[in-house]
């Protein structure tokens, strides 16, 4: 049972169960809340044509440390903190791209804030 209502065929067949890896999530404040892990779909944002419904319903994570440079991009400016969460088997399903981006579909029982190993400020 996933935390969000997902479209048919989602997660895709090449998604894998979380395997204990650590992943980065950018944050606007040093005090993460559950909402920081909502997908665009759950936040009620409208989806552009080029993005699939399934990806739109996922939470973006990164498996590479240099993801902390992403706030240098205009739309991600202001995300001055990041957390590292551990993705265990019972966390959810994920799809990792070559670029290190992770589409994460979390299970309803997963608490991302509780899975956080800490919050760090990104040096400007």
């Amino acid at each position, binding site marked *: 049972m996933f935390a969000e209502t997902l479209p048919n065929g989602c997660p895709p067949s090449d998604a894998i169960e979380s395997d204990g890896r650590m992943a980065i999530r*950018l944050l606007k404040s040093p005090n993460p809340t559950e909402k920081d892990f909502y997908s665009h779909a759950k936040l009620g944002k409208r989806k*552009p044509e*080029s*993005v699939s419904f399934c990806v739109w319903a996922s939470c973006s994570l990164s498996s590479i440390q240099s*993801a902390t440079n992403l706030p*240098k991009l*205009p*739309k*991600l400016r202001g995300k001055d903190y990041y957390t590292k969460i551990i993705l265990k088997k019972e966390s959810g399903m994920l799809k990792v791209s070559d670029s290190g*981006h992770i589409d994460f579909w979390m299970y309803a029982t997963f608490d991302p804030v509780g899975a956080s190993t800490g919050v760090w400020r990104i040096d400007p």
Partner: protein
Amino acid sequence: MTHQQSRLHATISKTLLYYDGPQIILLNGFSNMPIIAVAVNYDGMEYPFFACYTQQKHLDKYIHGKADLHFVFANAHMSEYYFFDLFEANNDVVNLIRATSDESRNNDFWPSKGFFSSNHILENENLHDTRRRFNINGAWEADDFTQFNRKMFDMYAIMSAKKILESVDSTPETLAELNALIINQSWEGGNSYVNFYKPFTTKIEIHSPIKVKSIQYASPGNIDLIGDKNIFDEMSRAITKFEQNIEKAAKAYQYINKILGQEKLKTSKASSEFSSEAIKNHVKGQADIILNSIGIDTPAIFMHSCNDNILIYSKLVLSIFRRIKGVYNFISEGRVQFN
């Protein structure tokens, strides 16, 4: 459509970075010139991007980590900047809106200095891969799609071979593989030609094998192919050159074809000889004309890849002519818009 209007449309080619939605996108703009765009916040648009036309050399610098993203924007073509709303994209085509000079200078829309491609690109990712759209019109049977795609794949193989032969970066192993693929064909007509083109992408190591991305079966519709941007650009140049030189090329083709028939060399082994040196050299000259007519200015390296065997060389060039002519026929019939 005027040039100015054409500059205001672009087709999404690739999302370079996705994090909470697309953040950096590559597009093909006017004359397939690359456009780079970053997601921004902009009133009145649902999913706004700030974009600029860029020269390939600047984009390459970013891709290879020799320059940051700020550099690419700072060197925007004509210092012109645009916005577009990704949410308004229709069949991956977006409408560009010119930014005012104040907007163009507004740091809120610019990536900060120090953002490099290493933040999202791994070394093994091929960033020359691009999607090229070919608009189609008129009546298309299922077999037409097969024929067109096959001819495009063959032409892609030809231009890949050109790139390999002309590039100083090609390894001796790759050159040897290409040479072996050419000289090990029987070149005795029929399937021997198919046997050269069909395995090309599997036998020769090219970084971006061509593939069909999508076909929109409509009139007008489109065929989207994925492959190396540089090879697609070579194909466009070859077709433009061919259009300018088609009479000369066709005359040379007919001459070689006639001579090979008279000399009974069409279905003979590659080791067969011409009846005289004069005829052989004249055939070579005509084959050079055909290659020149499609923008290959270094026929000598093609000749060298045929082990300087003029019979193999002439048959290879005839097969190249037939394939380029095959693509050109779709264009001249008005059924495919190439550029």
